[in-house]
Each structure stands twice: as C-alpha cells, then as structure tokens.
C-alpha cells in the first residue's frame, strides 16, 4: 500500500503542483517564465481534452479561442482603460461565448469535417486579428499594461505566477470532479455513440454546447493570464502551430484522461525548452519524439502509467473502438458511384 501511494497519480500531481508552487523561491526568471507557461498549457490541455478526449469533438479552434481570450483581456485594458482584474474575467467569458457558437456546426459535422470547419474558423480569426486594425492593432501587435499587484504587496512576475498557479489547481480540481459526474459521463456517452446517447435521454445540443463552452472558457482563462504574463500581444502566438502543440499535448498525455492532460502539457513544455539544446535540429528531434510517443504509447502516457504503476487509479475514458480497425457500420443510405464494390477473390 505505501508503495502504491508513493507512485500513484496523487503523488505525481502533488509533486508537480508542489514543485511549481515553490518554484519562485528557487528558480531564476527564465525557469519561472517556463513554469508559468507550463501552468497555462495545463489549463489549455485540460480544456481541450474535455472537448476532444471526453466529448469526441475533433475541433481545431482552441488556439483561436485562446487568442480571443488574450486579445479580449488586453484590448479592454488598452481601449477602455479597465484594470487587468476587471478585463480578465470578461475576456474569458467572451472567449467562452464565441467558442460555444462553434457547437452549431458541430451538431451536423464530425471527424475530419468538423476539424476543417473549426480550422476555417481559426484561420478567419487570425485574419480578423491581422486586419481589424482600428481595434486589434493588426499584425504588428501592441504592448499591454502589466497587471497591478499593489493590493498584494508582491512583485509583478511572482504575482502573475501565483495567480496562474491558483487558477490552474482550481480548474484541475473542478475538471476532476466534473468529469466523474453525470456531465462527464454524458460527454463520454456522446462520444461513443450519439444515437445511443440520445436514446439514454442525453440532449446532444445541450451537451455539445456545454463541452464547447467549458473548453473555450478554459482557453479564455489561459488567454487572459497569457496577456498578463507576456505584456505583448500579437497574432502569431495563436496560429496553427499553437493548435498543433496543444493537440499533441493531450494525445501524448492521454485522450479522455484529466491527469493525462496535466502530464502531457507539463511534459511537452519541458521537452520544448529542453530541445533548445539541439538548436537548428530541434524540429527534427521534436518530430521524432512525437512519432515515438505515438508508436510506443498511441493511447497516451497515462495508459503506460496505469499499467505499470500500481497506485495510478484514474477512471479512464479511452475511446473503446479504435477507429481504423472497426469502423461503425452503415445503417442506412446510398453510396455514390465510385464507392466500393468488393470483389471476392
């Protein structure tokens, strides 16, 4: 039993969040900045995993929603003179509202079609950030005021760090609870079969909207903190590369696993900083690592942990029917002319 308690997911989370909590006391400013990024990416991965891992909606708009949260927060400060503390919640809610609207195409689309529709939304958002010059200051970006911590008597760098830490831990605990509740189970049911879920009395519109709302709220919160951390806003932080990194985090960590989101985000941020040592060849090494993770742990690192570490007891919600092997049957409908007619040999 003691061994199990030592290596279980609880110890891992305590160790990770504990280390991140004491980091400001021991680390230099570079490490602190990376630690802060790690916290933000954990929030992003938690949110994205709710949408992609638990609810099965393969959306590609999370980076854009993240950008909307960040820009919303920053622009309210710059244009209307709000304080960071007033602007951040509004920015996060703005991101949530826009993100929830993406549930509309998701009602009719799935898989690669949903991916492309949301990708198109993301590209359009980038375009708006570039061209809505009078509001967003265009591609050249703008400086944002630093959040004030005068009420707390703490240096600004540390202030935003601790706010990020508290937010991350709160959102983690919230996610952990909610994914084990009725809502989380409904998400999983919806992912594993929409018609079956409906027949269980799950309102698809409501739950899809809720999945999009939750994940975009997380992205919005992360965006708001990001604007406070960075002090500079420009569109290139929210492009497809950002989206790819987030997606890689949840897949490497484990789709449909709350702890997996944390694990994937923390690991990938660490890896990307570590790869700086490879200088010009870091792209290659990063690619090899991604491929390696997928080849050896295609369902994520949590599967490995669950298998080999005795105390790792997270209830897992892995997709049960891997897609390429057993494709769902076609129950009705016609096929077009060039569809297969299998010849028996």
């Amino acid at each position, binding site marked *: 039993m003691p061994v199990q308690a030592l290596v279980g997911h609880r110890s891992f989370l305590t160790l990770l969040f504990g280390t991140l909590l004491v980091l400001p006391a021991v680390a230099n400013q570079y490490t602190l900045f990376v630690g802060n990024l790690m916290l933000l990416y954990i929030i992003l991965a938690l949110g994205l995993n709710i949408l992609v891992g638990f609810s099965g909606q393969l959306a590609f708009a999370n980076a854009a929603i993240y950008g909307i949260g960040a820009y919303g927060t920053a622009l309210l400060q710059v244009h209307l003179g709000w304080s960071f503390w007033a602007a951040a919640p509004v920015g996060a809610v703005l991101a949530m509202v826009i993100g929830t609207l993406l549930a509309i195409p998701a009602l009719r689309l799935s898989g690669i079609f949903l991916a492309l*529709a949301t990708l*198109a939304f993301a*590209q*359009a958002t980038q375009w708006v950030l570039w061209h809505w010059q009078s509001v967003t200051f265009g591609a050249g970006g703008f400086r944002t005021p630093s959040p004030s911590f005068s009420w707390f008597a703490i240096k600004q760098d540390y202030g935003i760090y601790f706010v990020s830490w508290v937010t991350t831990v709160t959102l983690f605990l919230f996610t952990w609870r909610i994914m084990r509740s009725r809502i989380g189970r409904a998400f999983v049911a919806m992912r594993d079969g929409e018609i079956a879920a409906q027949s269980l009395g799950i309102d698809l519109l409501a739950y899809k909207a809720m999945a999009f709302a939750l994940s975009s709220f997380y992205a919005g919160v992360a965006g708001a903190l990001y604007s406070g951390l960075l002090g500079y806003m420009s569109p290139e932080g929210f492009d497809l590369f950002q989206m790819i990194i987030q997606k890689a985090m949840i897949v490497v960590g484990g789709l449909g696993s709350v702890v997996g989101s944390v694990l994937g985000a923390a690991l990938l941020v660490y890896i990307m900083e570590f790869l700086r040592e490879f200088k010009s*060849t870091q792209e290659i090494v990063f690619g090899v690592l991604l491929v390696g993770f997928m*080849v050896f742990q295609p369902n994520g690192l949590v599967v490995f942990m669950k298998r080999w570490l005795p105390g790792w007891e997270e209830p897992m919600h892995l997709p049960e029917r891997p897609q*390429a092997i057993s494709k769902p049957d076609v*129950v009705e409908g016609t096929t077009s002319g*060039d569809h297969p007619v299998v010849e028996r*040999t």
Partner: protein
Amino acid sequence: MLMFSYLMATGITTGAFYGLVALGIVIVYKATEVVNLAHGELFMVGGMLAYTCYVIEGLPYVPSLLLAVAGAFVVGIITERVAYRSVLKHGLASVLVATIGVSFILKGIARYVWGGKGDYLSFPPLVSPEPLQFGNIMIMAQQLVVLVAALVVMAGLALFFKRTRAGKWMQATASNPKAALLCGLRIDRIYMYTFAVGAAVAGAAGVLMAPLTLLYPDVGFVLFIKGLAAAVLGGITSVPGAVVGGLLLGVIEQLAAGYVHSSVQDVVPFLVIMFALTFLPTGLFGVRGLRKI
C-alpha cells in the same frame, strides 16, 4: 470583361494547384480514413529532390522528375512503416499527431540540407517562361502544365479506383478493414502502398509546381491547407470532387481578390468552407445519408 476573364483564368490555374494537392489527400483518405498532415511536406520533398537532381547535379528533366517521384514514393513507404503502421490501429487523433511529427521531421531535414542556400530556391520551368496568348488574355505556360497534370492524374485515379483490383482493395479496406481482412486482403500492405502512392502524387505535384511556387522548406503548408479545403469541399472521398473543389476554391479566391479587395483573398475560401460545411456537411460530391452509430 477583360478583368473577369483574367480572374477566371487565374482562378482555374491556381485552383489546379489546390486540386492536384487535394488528389493526394483523397487517395490516402479513401484507403485509410486518415488525413496525412505531412502531405505538404511530401510535396516539398518532391520539389527539393528534383531541384537537387536537375539544378545542382545537372541531370535532364525527365530523369529528375522520375527520381523525385520515386524518392517521394520511398519516403511514403518509410513513413508508413516506421511512423504510421502501428498507430493506424488506434484513434484518428493519434494518427494525426504522428503525421504532424513526420511533417516536423521532413521540414527539419529540408532546412538542414537545403536551408542554407538562400531564402527561396528557383526552379526553371519545364516550358518557355514567356506567357502564352489565349484570345485577349495571357497565361503562363507552366500553369497550363499544372492544369493538364491535375486533369491527367484525376482521370488516372478515377480509372484506378473504378477499374483496377488494387483500387477496389483500397476502398474495401477503407470501408471495412475487418471485412477486407477476412476476404484475404493484406491490409497492412494496402495501407503502405496507399501512403506511398499519395506521396508520389504529392512529389509529382511538387516538381511540376516548383517553378511557380518556388522552393523552400515551408512551401507545403499553405498549399496543404488549401488542398485539404478543396478535398473536403469535394467530399473528401471523391476524386473528381477534389479537382472541382480545388478549381472552385481558386476561382472564389480570385474573384474576391479582384472585385472586393486583395486583402480578403486569403479569408474568403475559409468563410466559404465554414458555411458550406455547416449547410452541406458532406461536401459537394460526398456520400449522403450515412448515419453512424
């Protein structure tokens, strides 16, 4: 009127780019139900290999083209065997991440090998660089080459999927891998050749388009995004749909740029896709009425 005919002609010639890229995406999707996110990089690899043979080593054009296509084919085989084969058994998201990994690797290698030779590499065109006159408009000869190539590849693939056994095996594998396996199809091998053929088509596109797109490690990205859009617009499993989707995308882009403003050129296709997919969820030539449980 002159402006309109120019915009239409340009729309069709750039649309042919997207169509040719889309064709490679469709081949892979038809057999594996996976979009290869490294497709743009395979395109780039084809172009770079041809550049090495033709410009640096001074080989004649046709052997260079063939070597580049063969090279891309081999890269397709290697990536499938090393990176995708075991991942294909798992979810779509895992496969997508594996293909992203491959795209990073290919870009990184290209930057390492060819990246120090300047910002953009120029590739001499197959035909005379002077524009040709058609009625009252002028068209670059190389653009016609790409258009013809797109149509030829399209026709070839349509025949391949309709008439040949291998083509039907591929489709059978996609529509039900388990049943295909039971029928005695070696689905591993089919996947491998599918990725390889997809890569070869990308490589050929890369060589043909290089004089117009120029060559650099990241050339594939935008073309891939537009090609994917064209493929999805065309229903993602339809070979003619890919080309029609590409042409449509090209024409929309040009008309928007010409009559609205050049700043909307890049966003209009995405707006069209967003709305088209919301209201036409299976694309133009897609399979309708399917509902999965």
